[in-house]
């Protein structure tokens, strides 16, 4: 076997030995970070919390604990929960990073924000 070929094989073997654990670590890290379900409670004509920070891939669940119907609707109309009667809940998943403002279509003074990291 030529020295050039021998060096190439050695290089490949080293890459396999050194690279593989790194791949295993990356795979384990990805497996640890599961999507999180965040809760927003609607009560007293407000969203609680009013400012929420989440990560891309996470979801938010709105629960209407108030005595009248509400919605949680994106200001640009890109997403929404639809009408939530008292006691109802709805989940929305956020896959893209950014900052979104939303409000209640029925009570427009109710506003809140979500920061997706």
């Amino acid at each position, binding site marked *: 076997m030529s020295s050039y070929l021998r060096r190439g094989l050695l290089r490949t073997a080293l890459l396999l030995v050194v690279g593989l654990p790194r791949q295993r670590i990356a795979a384990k890290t990805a497996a640890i970070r599961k999507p999180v379900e965040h809760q927003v409670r609607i*009560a*007293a*004509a407000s969203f609680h919390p009013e400012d929420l920070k989440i990560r891309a891939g996470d979801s938010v669940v709105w629960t209407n604990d108030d*005595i*009248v*119907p509400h919605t949680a609707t994106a200001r640009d109309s890109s997403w929404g929960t639809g009408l939530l009667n008292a006691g109802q809940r709805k989940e929305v998943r956020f896959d893209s990073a950014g900052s979104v403002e939303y409000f209640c279509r029925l*009570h427009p*003074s109710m506003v809140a924000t979500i920061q997706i990291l």
Partner: protein
Amino acid sequence: MSNKIQLSVIAVAIALTGCAAIAKTPSDLNDQEIAHVAYVADNIDIRYAHLALALSTNPAIHKFAESMIRDHTAVNEQALALLKKLNAEPKDNFLSQQLMVGARTKTDELSKLRGPAFDKAYAENELAYHKAVNDLVGNAFIPNIENAEVKSLFEAGLKIFQAHEAHAAMMVKQVR
């Protein structure tokens, strides 16, 4: 209740009813009478809303009116359910009666209007009405309600009606 608040509550009652000859003050009402006033006040706003749906073609007015019907109906249903649970009946009183008289006068005035004139008058009345009722509920009723569950319902209702007041303020600007 401080004298200042008591005077402002009486002023609010006069503003709502147009009647200066009040034998009692709203703070004198008991829980059942307060519940009756709230029920009547809700129904008055529902009636105004139906009038708006019938006479206005403005989408902002319709959206607001539909919210008023939805919310005031929901609050009334909860109030009646609570009173039933407590084995109590709402009790008619001087303030409920004066609210009804004031509402009949206002309804007659609004019924004569059409188009932008109606929209403006309806929006301004909703703002004034919610301001006055919220003041009454917050300063005269809630501090004097004895039953904890009734008080809790009124506190929750007040938050909703304050959102209505804010919505009415937006509507007034929209229809100017």
